[in-house]
């Protein structure tokens, strides 16, 4: 009997024969789909390893005749964004500077919040929680301008602090949902026993809940790292020109109108920008899937 919990594990017997008409059909459809999914990655890598003359002559799918890493060096060190020519590395370090505090703050706030909402409910807490989840569906465009005014009045518009605050705010719905659902699923006896022993709000959280919730923290970190790294809109508005994250710089490099387009440099810069979330994805597999599934799980 299979459990009723969502599971991504295959069940039942091992497949018997690999070569039957049905399985040939299944595997060929999956293979074609897989090729379609891999083509952009393949094209990106191939293009970034070619010199410009070869790109002009050849076709985008052919592997490079002469492999060169020059485009990667140029993309990292000296690609031009239209304002200056310091390469995508500026954006990389800006993204790191935005990413680390945003991930830490949003997770601390949401985990404590989720814990309060699961074990320490108070009058109105469920109402606010529902409102928070609904807020996640409001298009960001609706709240952008008032937030510009608020951050400007607080003196943090166009600064790292500003964009970090914005990421913390908009990360709250999904993270709170994630943590609340996790804490609700823990056996309530644990909490009750700790209460009987006289432990308070923070002590139960730090000494009992935290050590038990490593997996959910991993899911939250993955969710936030990929989400914040891939952000464009908040970075372009709230971070300020000096602190533009990597995605904004990448777009400025590739879509800048002046100069001859260096497709190989552009693709190298694109891969470099995609590398961080891709590495997180490849090394975290199951946790990543849990993170995206969390968005689909109702509270």
């Amino acid at each position: 009997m299979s459990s009723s919990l969502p599971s991504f594990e295959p069940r039942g017997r091992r497949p018997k024969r690999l070569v039957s008409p049905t399985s040939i059909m299944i595997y060929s459809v999956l293979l074609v789909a897989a090729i379609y999914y891999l083509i952009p990655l393949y094209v990106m890598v191939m293009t970034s390893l070619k010199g410009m003359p070869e790109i002009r002559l050849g076709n985008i799918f052919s592997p490079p005749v002469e492999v060169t890493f020059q485009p990667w060096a140029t993309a990292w060190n000296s690609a031009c964004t239209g304002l200056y020519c310091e390469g995508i590395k500026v954006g990389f370090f800006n993204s790191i500077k935005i990413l680390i505090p945003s991930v830490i703050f949003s997770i601390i706030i949401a985990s404590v919040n989720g814990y309060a909402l699961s074990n320490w409910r108070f009058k109105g807490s469920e109402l606010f929680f529902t409102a928070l989840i609904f807020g996640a569906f409001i298009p960001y465009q609706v709240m952008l301008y008032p937030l510009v005014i608020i951050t400007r009045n607080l003196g943090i518009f166009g600064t790292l602090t500003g964009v970090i605050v914005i990421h913390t705010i908009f990360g709250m719905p999904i993270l709170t949902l994630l943590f609340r659902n996790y804490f609700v699923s823990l056996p309530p006896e644990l909490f009750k026993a700790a209460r009987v022993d006289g432990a308070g709000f923070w002590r139960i959280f730090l000494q009992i809940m935290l050590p038990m919730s490593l997996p959910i923290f991993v899911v939250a970190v993955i969710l936030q790292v990929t989400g914040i790294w891939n952000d464009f809109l908040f970075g372009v508005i709230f971070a300020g020109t000096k602190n533009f994250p990597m995605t904004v710089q990448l777009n400025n490099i590739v879509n800048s109108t002046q100069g001859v387009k260096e497709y190989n440099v552009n693709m190298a810069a694109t891969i470099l920008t995609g590398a961080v979330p891709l590495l997180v994805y490849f090394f975290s597999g199951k946790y990543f899937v849990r993170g995206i599934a969390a968005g689909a799980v109702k509270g």
Partner: protein
Amino acid sequence: MSVSRRPFAPLRNLNAKVAAVPMIVTVLVVFVGCTLWTVVYSFTSSRSLPTLDFVGVDQYVRLFRTSRWTVSLKNLAIFGILSLTFSLVLGFILAALMDQKIRFENTFRTIFLYPHALSFIVTGLVWQWILTPTYGVQKVVRDLGFETFNFPVLTDGRYTIYAIVIAGLWQGTGLVMALMLAGLRNIDDEIWKAARVDGIPAWRTYLFIVIPMMRPVFITTLVIICATIVKVYDLVVALTNGGPGISSEVPAKYVYDFMFSRGNLAQGLAASTIMLTTVLIILVPWALLEFRPENRRGASK
């Protein structure tokens, strides 16, 4: 949910209330406050700075007379309907194939889902390169001998929105597949056994038994896709930047441009209010359906 609910005095649960302050502030100030501010100021004549000079529905009248806005709405509709249909159908088919106890399931899943880890900017730029007429798909097919092959999805304004659909599907179908696969794994094996005993072919079992049973999964997926579709912005900025001309403009970009680069604030606010209304039209029926547990249980039986 078993949670200890004891009659705490208001101040005894103070820690929890302090912990919830960020959430309460976010809800009241950002989600409620900022949204109301936007709706109110969309009825004013604000240009580069917000003013409270009310002009009724003028901004909305002007909005719907602007061709760029109507093109944006039309594009959003095309993008929305095509993305929704194809990602649901393809996502479900892929999930159903993955559910056939196949080998290399993990490898296939990793491949189908990796675009979801990428930024829309990255996706947009890669597809811009693949679809470039001078070097991309069009040239490759012509080099194969089909001299007259045309694939002008980036250069002919009539087709640019389809380029965005192609890139969006590449990024989004994997997520639908993962959600659908989780849903399929939730269907009891007994159902399949019973259908097989009754001699019902697999496609009929899917169509008439499994899919109706997965209704909640479909609805949740639908809501998630719709919410992302309405917000589509980065992908367009990276792939076409709205062009050529205004052929691939979308509402979110209209809002951004009018607010931040054209200094026509109230137009942007009115446009964003329309976006909000669109989301509400999708969200409210879903919420009414979803958050009445008795109703839902009654309906699914």
